[in-house]
Structures are given as structure tokens and as C-alpha cells.
């Protein structure tokens, strides 16, 4: 968008220490008018008062003012400056948000977003509805990225061994070091980056390597190895698979958390949901999951098989043999899977998880090929990376060179390799052998600790860049705010090598694309690309490739306890560990916050005599970690699952001390899992903060579930499960009639994948406070919407159900009648409103709420102190203080915004015009919201579905939120206890 360029600077804030606010865009841009304005001795008009009479009056008034000022002189007022816009920025209407299209890259994969800005202050992230990889949805880390932008713990100044420096002095020092390398063609230069996908950055690095042929560029990220190398193994080239779940009738997931998480997850979830359930026009697919630890995606499976990590390869090889014509061997489960897959040739998908080994990925590619899926449901494009490579090998090469003393100048750009590298490499020690170590990073983290020059890295919303989305569509990343902490982008750093070290990121990106641009009218094209947030039809063309079946490798013996490693679903490899929203967001399956845990199955726990929260020591590969046990049905027996990304020591106020560092156990030879681990009970306990403690439904039916078969037999079987109070059951003489709008919501439990994106979207939209582990331990978390997770079936083979629960906006709301001060009241459109100003905090409403969705500010949870966090808050939503109750409002600010817009145009609000924050971001589109008085609205149609039911409807609360039952499509040949 073009007005964004006004903002982009000419970095006036360079060298400024800490957070610097600018009063207007003109100050930022340092226009002449503004400078003039600042330097005038008196404000405009003051000096013009020259005539005598005026002067006398002026003195009189001044005298009186001074006398009055004396009266108020007892309290010193803080200096506060206000400054109007001298020139009003284009399109800015105070109070009206502007949305800018950009992208948030995670591991190089752009998540296309629209960022809501209030007076140029980014406050909320939404998916980009026009982008094919988002369609308006965003996943959890992308939703939480806005908090990362304002993180007060980010690096805030350029330092050299702890001393503050300017960028200019860095350049002098840096270029001097580079100069020395000229003689040996840069042989002492090493660059360590994360996975690079940005075309501009790729070109910049290649330029550099041309200039200094001796220099080397390495990439390292601790996760995603299997996915990258699997394609290489199978096809002999690096390819990027894209899945078409809307065309898949049978899906087999091998430890893949492909819905709503990781690259392409958002689109996967959307496509997958279109093939699930019994809603009008849906023909349900069948989904098998084979998992080494329960994931939120796997919990949606019709049949789920827990296998030990070492058994995965055997399982996929058996499938490969069978589909290629071999005898279908193995268990009943395997046979059923093979039969279904063969029956749906060209219409099935087998997908392997990102944490799985390259070999598993390669075999899976082969299976898809035999099943004729490749090119149909699985499409391959060339790798999206600028230099796809075996990153584990690269890291080892770097360490060797470091140890050999060959490195004079090491640049560590992004990432946190010292923390995430396998301990055997001792990268921490090796890195200090480099003579000059330059670090560009967002935090003073484990890697920054061992580098001399620290340069604050600009957040993705602070600088220009470009990156491909999971489907390869390229996005131009535009900044939304001038760097808060004087951050530099990686592009800036590479410019430093060239002839124009002060060239801005904007020029860099623009020139790169201008050089690449072939058609006419570059300016128009450029504006379009920025406005849309992506370059239309820039996705790479699909390639045809033939996968070969790898010869079986020596099987890793599955002796002893196995330990598998998984990227955390929210903080990923640890990169977002200082994000309070993500730390406090309950993990979908364990419901834990703030810590990782040693996940074991009930049987393993019994065998090892472990209880929840027992501290155990796990020893393997010559090192050991200590963590607290969390027992999880659905975890394979004899296997432990550990989340990576915790145990950070230099993360920041949120991430420090959360959990334990599972990287210490990870072996470079097999990053997927480790066999033969020794588990020793330490005899201590460590408290884990779970937000849910009971997972059985206790004979109640909060989640109603069934199968497609049952539905075909009796479409109303869900509604017959329990009685609902008849309408009109009231003591009052007359029912209130909702004549105007009647807002309501329906949530499809079949579509919900429990990814928690709605929870963090709600937190971002509604200024919901983070309360910290201690408060969560006392079940005081503040999330307005929560995703309950229940088990049904047996403990060994549980079926899991997700249920998002927010305020149900009951028509007969139990909270309303018990509030003594009328702080929670009903409005004429059926909303249950919460009047914070009126609330005295008796908590009676919460006690009387059968859904327990109300949240209370037991203490001052909102951070009123940290300046940067204030910028994040949504100005349309009250920031709550201590002692008041709060809860889901159905995003009343969005409702009212739409109503005002409609009223201005003298029309009714149309269906789809109001999208709640949870609904907007939901990758599987499991939430419908709208006007119940409009029979054509989506929500009315959903509520008319035969599987629609009210939660606790028998209490006659008449909730405005209803649920569509969790309907699955199990294979009749595999009978498992499903109905719980």
C-alpha cells in the first residue's frame, strides 16, 4: 500500500537508545516544515502579538495565569506533549483502523497477513483473505506475532561487548575486518543464517559470495530437516510438496500435525474441513493417523494408532510394500489402511510429519507415487529455499572449521544456533574460536551471549523483505511501523558489504524486483503487489518427479525407552519462547502452559511408578535432562515425547526458566528420536500448570459425537441424546422478542482441530492479560474462549474431542439475575453484556455460570507499566483493571462497527459483515457467527443442521452458541469403542 511508504524512513531513529516515539510522520521524515516548526522560538501566533494594547493584555493574562498556576503547583505534572498532525496523513481517520497486507515469515515460509493498525500502530493480525495460502486465517504463532513486535525484552541497542555503539561505528569496524579478508578472497568469512527463502536475500548473499569466493554461507534450523531431506532422498532433488486435502478421500498421517500448524497448515485445515462431517453437501473423507505422540491433528482421526518412534519406519515400509503389490501384511489396522488407500488411488494423501526422519518422508513420497497421488492430491514444486541443503551437515562443517581456527569473521544472522545445536557439537565453545563474531538477532539470547557485536534485528513488521508462502506464492513484506528499537534487517547488513552501506531496505527490495520485473509499468505492479500482500500467480510451476524406493536402512533398535522430539506447537523450536501469549496458551493435548513435560502413557507411568508432576531424569546420548512427568493417554507405551524450545536461560521475562531443554538429549545422528534412554525417578515433584484437570466426560455429554453411519440411520440421533428445555418454559408472563438483530454463533466440532488459534486471536483482539504460571496453577487464566479437550473410549485407545467454549450468551442467563449491581445485563439483540465500570467483583455471576466461562481479575493482571505493550492494545476494547469480571463479548466492538457502517448506509448488517476474532482466524472455519433473525445467514443454516445441539440445554439457559456434533467416519471393519 502506497501510504506505507510515507512511513518508511530514512531511519531517523538510528542510534536512538530504547524506545523512541515520534510525534508525527513529519518528525519521522524530518520535513523542513517540521524542523522550522520545532525551531521557532515561539509557537505560531505568539510572536505576532506586537501591538501595545495586545501586549498589555497579554501580560495581564499571563500574570493571572501564573497566579493560578501557583495554586496547582503542589503536584508536579509529568511532562506530556501532544502534537497535532501538521499535515494529516493520507487516509487516516482517527478511530478507524487501517489494514495493511504483509507477511510474517516463520522458518522462511511467509504467513500472509493483514495487519490492523490504529493511527499507524499495529494492533492485530488477521489472515490475508485473498492469499491462497491463508484465505483469511492465520495460525497460532502468526496471531501472536504482534506481541513479539512489542516485546520489551528485544535487543534495543547496538553493542560491542556490552558497550553501546552506533551503526556507523559498527560499519567502520566491520568493514575494516572485511577489508582484511579481501586478500584471501574472504576465506575467513562465515555466514550462518536460518533457512533463507527470500529471493532478495538470496541474491544479496550470492553477490557477496561472488565478491568473496572464499566465504561460506551455512544455514541451520533445528526442525524441518526430514521434510527437506526426504524429498532429496526420494526424488534426487529438493522439492516442496503441496497437499490438496479437499480432493483426498483417504488420508494417512504419519506423525504429521498438518492441520493449522507448520507450513501450509492453515490451508490444509481449510481444505481438510471441507471433506469432513455430515453438513449439507459434504462427503466425509476417512482419516487414519499413526503417531508417536498425540497431536491436535491426529486427534481428529477416525482411527488413530500410537506407535513407538522406532516402529514408524517399519509401518510405512509395510504400507509401501503392500500398495506396490506386496501382500498386505501386519495388523488389522494396517490392512484396513491399505485397503482404503488402494480403493482411493489418486484420491488419497499420505503425509509425514516435519519431525519425522528423511527416510520416512522418502518412503511416504514413494507411497504417494504408487497410489498415483503425486500430481493430483500431492503436487511438487521446486524447493522454496534459496539454497536447499543438508543443514545438519552444514552445521557440522561449520563447527569443524571453527575448531580448525579457519574463521575470522562469523556472522550469525537470526536463529539461535548455540541453543538449538546438538550438544555433541559444542557449538558454544567452537563459536568463540572465531575472531570477530557479529550477531544480528532479536534477543540477547544464548547465541548473542557469545558474540561481540550485537545488532538488534528488526521484526518482520518493521522492515522490508520478501518471502514465499507455503504454496510458493511470493509476498513483499512491508513494514508497519518504524523499528521500535532501532532494529536492522538482514538486508541492511548485506548492503554493508557493498558500495552503498546506507542503502535502505526499501530500496534494496524494490531494486531487486525492478530488475526482475519484465512486464510494463513496474510502479503499478509494485504498488499492486504491496497492496495485495502478494505477487499474483508467482507460485512456482509444479514439476513432475519420480520417487524411488529407498533400500531399507539398518533399523534402529528399539531397545529400552524411546524418546521422541517434537517442535512445540506454539513456540516452535524455541524462537517464540518469550511470547507470553504463546507460553500461556494451553497446549492442545496436554493442556499445559508455561512448561514442557515428560509425556508418558498411563501404562508406562505405571511400569515406572510415575505420577503426574514427578521429576525424572532422562539420560541418553551421554547427557541427561530433568523434567516433570505428564501422563497422557494416547501416547505409545515405552516411549517418551519431549517438546523442544524450552529451558531457555536467556530468553526474556516470559521464556526464562520455562520447562527444560530437550535439545540436550538430541543426537545429531538421529534428531527424530533416541532409543535406550534411562529414566530415573528423582523423588521430587515440580508443579505443572494445566488449565484442565479432568478429561473424562463423567457420563455427561458436553461433546456429542457420532459417526456418519449413525447419522445415516437416524439424522436426529444427536438431538435425541438428551432433552432440551422447551421454548417458553418461563415464569415470566411474556417472552422477550428479538425483533432487530439476534446475534448467535454455531461451532462445528467436526471441523475444530483444537489448534488454539482462536484463543490467541481473541487474546490479541480483546486485550486479554497474561497472568503467569502461578496464577494458572490456581486456575485463574483469563482466556475468554477455551478449547476443552475430552476423552472417550478406552484409556489405551482414546478418542479425543475438542470443544471451544466461550460465553454462551444465554437468553436466560444465570449470571444476570444474580449480579447485585446489574453489571451484567442482556441487550435487545441477545448479547449478554459485561459492564466493567459497574462491576464491583462479587464473582456471583461466575459461580452461577454453568459453563464457567467468566474470567475474573483477581489481581491487577494487565500490565500498566510496560510502555511498549501499551502500543499493542486494541483501542476499541476496554483494558480491564483489578477486581472486575470479564468474558467473551462476541467481539461487540466489531458488531457495533458494522452496525454503524450499516446505519450510515441505511441498510441492515449483511451476513458475513461481522466476523468475530476467533471466527476470522479459524483455519478450519469451524465457527459461524451472524444474525439468527436472518434465515439465510450462515449461522442460521448451521443451527438448522440436524446435528446442532446446545451445551447443557437441559438447564433452560437457552444459549446463543450451539454446537454441531463431532461426526467421524470410522471404518466399519475396525471396531473401536468410539462412543463415550
Amino acid at each position, binding site marked *: 500500500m502506497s501510504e506505507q511508504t510515507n512511513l518508511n524512513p530514512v531511519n531517523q531513529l538510528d542510534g536512538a537508545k530504547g524506545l523512541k516515539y515520534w510525534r508525527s510522520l513529519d518528525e519521522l521524515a524530518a520535513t523542513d516544515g517540521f524542523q522550522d516548526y520545532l525551531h521557532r522560538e515561539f509557537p505560531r501566533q505568539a510572536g505576532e502579538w506586537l501591538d501595545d494594547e495586545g501586549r498589555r493584555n497579554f501580560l495581564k493574562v499571563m500574570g493571572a495565569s501564573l497566579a493560578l498556576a501557583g495554586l496547582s503547583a503542589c503536584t508536579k505534572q509529568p511532562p506530556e506533549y501532544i502534537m497535532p498532525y501538521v499535515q494529516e496523513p493520507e487516509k487516516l481517520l482517527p478511530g478507524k483502523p487501517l489494514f495493511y497486507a504483509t507477511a510474517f515469515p516463520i522458518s522462511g515460509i511467509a504467513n500472509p497477513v493483514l495487519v490492523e493498525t490504529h493511527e499507524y500502530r499495529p494492533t492485530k493480525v488477521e489472515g490475508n483473505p485473498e492469499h491462497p495460502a491463508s484465505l483469511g486465517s492465520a495460525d497460532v504463532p502468526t496471531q501472536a506475532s504482534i506481541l513479539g513486535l512489542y516485546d520489551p525484552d528485544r535487543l534495543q541497542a547496538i553493542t560491542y561487548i556490552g558497550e553501546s555503539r552506533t551503526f556507523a561505528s559498527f560499519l567502520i569496524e566491520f568493514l575494516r575486518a572485511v577489508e582484511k579478508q579481501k586478500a584471501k578472497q574472504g576465506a575467513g568469512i562465515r555466514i550462518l543464517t536460518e533457512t533463507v527463502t527470500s529471493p532478495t536475500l538470496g541474491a544479496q548473499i550470492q553477490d557477496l559470495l561472488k565478491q568473496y569466493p572464499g566465504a561460506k554461507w551455512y544455514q541451520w534450523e533445528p526442525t524441518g530437516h526430514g521434510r527437506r531431506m526426504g524429498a532429496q532422498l526420494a526424488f534426487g532433488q529438493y522439492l516442496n510438496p503441496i497437499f490438496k486435502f479437499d480432493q483426498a478421500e483417504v488420508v494417512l498421517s504419519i506423525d504429521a500435525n498438518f492441520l493449522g500448524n507448520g507450513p501450509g497448515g492453515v490451508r490444509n485445515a481449510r481444505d481438510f474441513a471441507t471433506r469432513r462431517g455430515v453438513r449439507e453437501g459434504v462427503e466425509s473423507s476417512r482419516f487414519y493417523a499413526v503417531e508417536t505422540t498425540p497431536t491436535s491433528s491426529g486427534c481428529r482421526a477416525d482411527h488413530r494408532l500410537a506407535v513407538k518412534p522406532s516402529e514408524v519406519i517399519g509401518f510405512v515400509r509395510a504400507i509401501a510394500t503392500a500398495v506396490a503389490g506386496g501382500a498386505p501384511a501386519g495388523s488389522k489396522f494396517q490392512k484396513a489402511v491399505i485397503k482404503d488407500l488402494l480403493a482411493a488411488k489418486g484420491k488419497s494423501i499420505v503425509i509425514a510429519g516435519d519431525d519425522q526422519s528423511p527416510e520416512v518422508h522418502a518412503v511416504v513420497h514413494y507411497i504417494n507415487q504408487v497410489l498415483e497421488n503425486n500430481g493430483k492430491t500431492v503436487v511438487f514444486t521446486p524447493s522454496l529455499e534459496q539454497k536447499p541443503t543438508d543443514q545438519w551437515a552444514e552445521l557440522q562443517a561449520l563447527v569443524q572449521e571453527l575448531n580448525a581456527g579457519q574463521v575470522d569473521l562469523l556472522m550469525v544472522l537470526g536463529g539461535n544456533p548455540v541453543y538449538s545445536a546438538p550438544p555433541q557439537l559444542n557449538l558454544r565453545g567452537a563459536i568463540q574460536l572465531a575472531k570477530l563474531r557479529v550477531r544480528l538477532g532479536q534477543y540477547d539470547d544464548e547465541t548473542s551471549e557469545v558474540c561481540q557485536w550485537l545488532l538488534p534485528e528488526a521484526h518482520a513488521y518493521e522492515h522490508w523483505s520478501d518471502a514465499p508462502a507455503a504454496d510458493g506464492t511470493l509476498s513483499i513484506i512491508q513494514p508497519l511501523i518504524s523499528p521500535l528499537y532501532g532494529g536492522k534487517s538482514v538486508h541492511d547488513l548485506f548492503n554493508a558489504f557493498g558500495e552503498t552501506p546506507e542503502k535502505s531496505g526499501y530500496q534494496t527490495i524494490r531494486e531487486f524486483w525492478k530488475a526482475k520485473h519484465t512486464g510494463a509499468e513496474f510502479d503499478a505492479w509494485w504498488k499492486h503487489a504491496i497492496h495485495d500482500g502478494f505477487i499474483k500467480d508467482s507460485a512456482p510451476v509444479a514439476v513432475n518427479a519420480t520417487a524411488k524406493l529407498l533400500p531399507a536402512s539398518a533399523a534402529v533398535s528399539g531397545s529400552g525407552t524411546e524418546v521422541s522430539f517434537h517442535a512445540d506447537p506454539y513456540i516452535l523450536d524455541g524462537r517464540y519462547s518469550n511470547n507470553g501469549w504463546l507460553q500461556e496458551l494451553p497446549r492442545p493435548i496436554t493442556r499445559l502452559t508455561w512448561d514442557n513435560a515428560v509425556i508418558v502413557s498411563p501404562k508406562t507411568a505405571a511400569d515406572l511408578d510415575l505420577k503426574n508432576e514427578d521429576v525424572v531424569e532422562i539420560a541418553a546420548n551421554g547427557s541427561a535432562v530433568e523434567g516433570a512427568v505428564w501422563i497422557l493417554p494416547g501416547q505409545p507405551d515405552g516411549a517418551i515425547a519431549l517438546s523442544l524450545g524450552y529451558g531457555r536461560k536467556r530468553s526474556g521475562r516470559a521464556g526464562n526458566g520455562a520447562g527444560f531443554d530437550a535439545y540436550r538429549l538430541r543426537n545429531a545422528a538421529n534428531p527424530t528420536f533416541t532409543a535406550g534412554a534411562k529414566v530415573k525417578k528423582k523423588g521430587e515433584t515440580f508443579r505443572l500448570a494445566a488449565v484442565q484437570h479432568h478429561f473424562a466426560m463423567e457420563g455427561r455429554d458436553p461433546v456429542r459425537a457420532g459417526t456418519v453411519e449413525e447419522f445415516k440411520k437416524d439424522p436426529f440421533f444427536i438431538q435425541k441424546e438428551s432433552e432440551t428445555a422447551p421454548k417458553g418454559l418461563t415464569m415470566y408472563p411474556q417472552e422477550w422478542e428479538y425483533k432487530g438483530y439476534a446475534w448467535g454463533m454455531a461451532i462445528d466440532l467436526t471441523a475444530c482441530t483444537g489448534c488454539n488459534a482462536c484463543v490467541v486471536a481473541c487474546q490479541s483482539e480483546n486485550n486479554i492479560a497474561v497472568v503467569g504460571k502461578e496464577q494458572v496453577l490456581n486456575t485463574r487464566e483469563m482466556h475468554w474462549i477455551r478449547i476443552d479437550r475430552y476423552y472417550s473410549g478406552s484409556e489405551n485407545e482414546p478418542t479425543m474431542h475438542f470443544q471451544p467454549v466461550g460465553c454462551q450468551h444465554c437468553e436466560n442467563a444465570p449470571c444476570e439475575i444474580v449480579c447485585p449491581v446489574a453489571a451484567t445485563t442482556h441487550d435487545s439483540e441477545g448479547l449478554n453484556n459485561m459492564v466493567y465500570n459497574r462491576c464491583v467483583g*462479587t464473582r456471583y455471576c461466575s459461580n*452461577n455460570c454453568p459453563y464457567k466461562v467468566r474470567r475474573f481479575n483477581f489481581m491487577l493482571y494487565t500490565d500498566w507499566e510496560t510502555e511498549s505493550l501499551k502500543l499493542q492494545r486494541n483501542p476499541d476494547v476496554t483494558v480491564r483493571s483489578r477486581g472486575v469480571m470479564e468474558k467473551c463479548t462476541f467481539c461487540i466492538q466489531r458488531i457495533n462497527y458494522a452496525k454503524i457502517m450499516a446505519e450510515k448506509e441505511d441498510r441492515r448488517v449483511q451476513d458475513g459483515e461481522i466476523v468475530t476474532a476467533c471466527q476470522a482466524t479459524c483455519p478450519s472455519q469451524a465457527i459461524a457467527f451472524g444474525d439468527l433473525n436472518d434465515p439465510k445467514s450462515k449461522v442460521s443454516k448451521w443451527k438448522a443442521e440436524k446435528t446442532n445441539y446446545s451445551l447443557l440445554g437441559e438447564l433452560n439457559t437457552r444459549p446463543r452458541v450451539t454446537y454441531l456434533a463431532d461426526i467421524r467416519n470410522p471404518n466399519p471393519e475396525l471396531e473401536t469403542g468410539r462412543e463415550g
Partner: protein
Amino acid sequence: MAQPVELPDSIHVGPVIDPGHSLASVSDKVGGIVLKRRITLGWVFGLLISFAVLQNLMAGATWLFIKGVGVWGINIPVGWGFAIINFVWWIGIGHAGTLISAILLLLNQSWRNAINRFAEAMTLFAVMCAGMFPVLHTGRPWLAFWLLPYPNTMALWPQMRSPLLWDVFAVSTYLTISAVFWFVGLLPDLATLRDSSKSRAGQLIYGALSLGWRNSARHWQRYEKASLLLAGLATPLVVSVHTVVSFDFAVSLIPGWHTTIFPPYFVAGAIYSGFGMVLTLMIPVRKFYGLDDIITLRHLNNMAKVTLATGLIVAYGYILEAFFGYFSADTYERFMIWNRMFGPYAVFYWCLILCNIITPQFLWLKKVRTSPGKLWIISIIVNIGMWLERFVIVVTSLHRDFLPSSWGMYWPTIWDWAVYTGTLGLFMTLIFLFVRVLPMITIFELRMLLPGAEVKEPVAH
């Protein structure tokens, strides 16, 4: 006015006042505690301890105001904890005083004369302790006055359908009536103290407080009228206050709260705990101040009987609650009863059964009823039992309600205990001060119990 009622010998346990007392000796004995008796070390010690414990309330409330109610153990789902438990407990304790002073007065139970002053004082102090909790427990106590119906610029009244609001009216009415009743009852005795006080300060203070009482027949006639009217006003309060308090729970829809049996069961529980507390206080006072000739075994026996009777009603309530839970065939109700009996708080439930159903059965024995030591121990158990009852009702109902996903646990923090023990300290401090500065037994009513007070013709009331 009242004459000793002739009761059959079988239920007599001695007289209501020892023979050998005369009109003068009674005044001397009771008034002397205030005017003549030296301050004993025991009293000072007791007051100091109570006052020290009262500081817990100061510290607890201060920290509470600084940090918010989060310093307590409450959470979601258990939004009410110690504050409401203690509120109900203290309010219940108050009920004995009102029952003794109002209902027994109307029923002409002359034995009450020796204990009503003390019991009323106890009521007043208990209601003071109770009244603090609803304010302390609000999230924004500085705005708690919004519960009062006062004309305001927001043109907003409290929400009349909320039982908490009914509480405000019930408790404030209760406090007002109790205070007025108590003070009116004190007037003749304050005048007696004024007249017999030797110190100028005593004469002035008691003189001012006695509001010019001159013992004239007209005064007495008006006094009797006022007493009767106030007794008439207070009588319904005995029933209504705790009924309204029980509505806090009964009106909600939480299993374990939503029960029609609550009003009578709460009232019986209140009287039960009130008598328990009167016994707890009376037995030591009677001993230390040598009042066993005025507060006789007959009193203890009668109070023990009331305790037993109300205890049996409470036991009936427990049994019916369990039965209804089962008989309702409602998943949530059944689970609630099961959870109370065998859930994580089962030990509280069974202690409650032990305290409130098993222990009072000893009161069937006359030997126990007339043995102050044993009776005192039982009264303490009754007090604990009734506190546990409120704990069980508040916590076990809330902690596991409808959706298993939101089940949780509640454990008090030291700040919960600080405020609770602090109110105990306040209560005891007030009791200690009361016994030293005001006649703890109604002198003039005692005199009426003496044979010399008999009049030939009944006075018309």
C-alpha cells in the same frame, strides 16, 4: 413481670438462680464485675491475645486492599471461599442471641434472663464480624456501596433480583434491630451502674448512656412496650436473615446449592451454631467470674437441649440432601452428593457428619448436659462442625459443577486464614471489653426472678 414457670420436676435441673440471692446481692454481683472488680491478670492476658490476633485482620485486610482478592485462594470455578464461608458462619452464630432475647421473651421463658444480655452482645459482635466479609470479598471494595439503594447521578438502582442484594437488606436490618434491642435493654442497667459508680468518669459515661433513666413507673411501662415491640420485630429476623442468606445459594443453579430445603435447614443450623457459641463463651465466663449461682446448670441444660433439637434438624437436612440428590435421578445432583462423600474433599464432609450428627447425640445424656466441661468441648465441636458445613456447601458444590473441563480445587492461603482468625480476634476482643465495661447479665431481669420480686397482681403488657 415474668414469673418463674413451674415445670415438672423431671426436667428440672436446679433453679434458674441460686436461692440465697437478694435484690441487692444480684446488683452487687453483676454490677460489681464492672465497677468494683479489679482488672485481673487473666483478663489482661486474654484481651492482649485477642487483640494480637485481631492484628491478623489488619494485616490481612491491608494486603488484600493492596493486591486484590487474588491473595486469597479463590479462583474460577470456586469464586467464593473463606469470605463467604465465614460470613455465613458468623451470621449463623448471631442467631442464638436473637432467639434468646426475642423468641424466648415472647414465650415467657424466664430462664433466658440470665443469658440474654450476653447472647445479644455476642449476636452484635458476630454480625459485625460477618458484615465485614461481603465488603472485603468484593473485587473493588471501594465501590461496594453500589449495593445500597441510594439516589445517584447514574440513575441506577441495584439489581433487585440478586440474592446478594437481599442479603444487604437482611443483614443491615438485622444489625440495626439487634443493636437497638440490645441498647434499649441496657438502659435500666446503665442507670444502675450510674447510680452505683463511685468514679466521676463512670457516673458521667454511664449517665450519658442511660439516657436519663430514672426508674419511674412510666419509664418502665414504656420500656416494657418497647421491648415487646422490638422482640416482635426481631422474631421474624431469626427466621428471615438466614433464610435470605440461604437464598444466596438456593437461588443459583449450581448442584448442591439449588435446593429448596436450604432455608429451614440454614435457620436450624444457625440456631444450632449460635447456641454452640453461647455455650463456648458462657461456660468459661461463668467459671472465671463466679457466676455459677446466676448462670446455673439449669441454663446449661436448657441450652444443650436447644442445641440437640436444632442439631437433629440439621442432621435431618443432611440426610434429605443426600436423599434428594439420589432421588432426583439428575446426573449433576447425584454426582455432587457422591463427590461430597467420596471426592477430594470427602474428609471435610465426614468430619462435618462427625461434628454435627454424631457429637450432639451425647446431649441426650443428662450427665453430659449438666457437666460444664463436657458441654464446653461439645460446643466447640459444634462450632467447628458448622464452619465445616459452610465449607462443604460453598466449596464442594462449586469446585465440580457441570462441565468436567472446568473442574478445579480450592485451598485457602495464609491470607484467608489471616482474615478469618483476625475476625475471631475482633470478636474475642469485643467480648473481653464487653464483660468489663457493661453488665453482662441483665440485672433488673434477674431481680425479677427473685422471690421478692413477685407482685400480687400480674402487670398487663
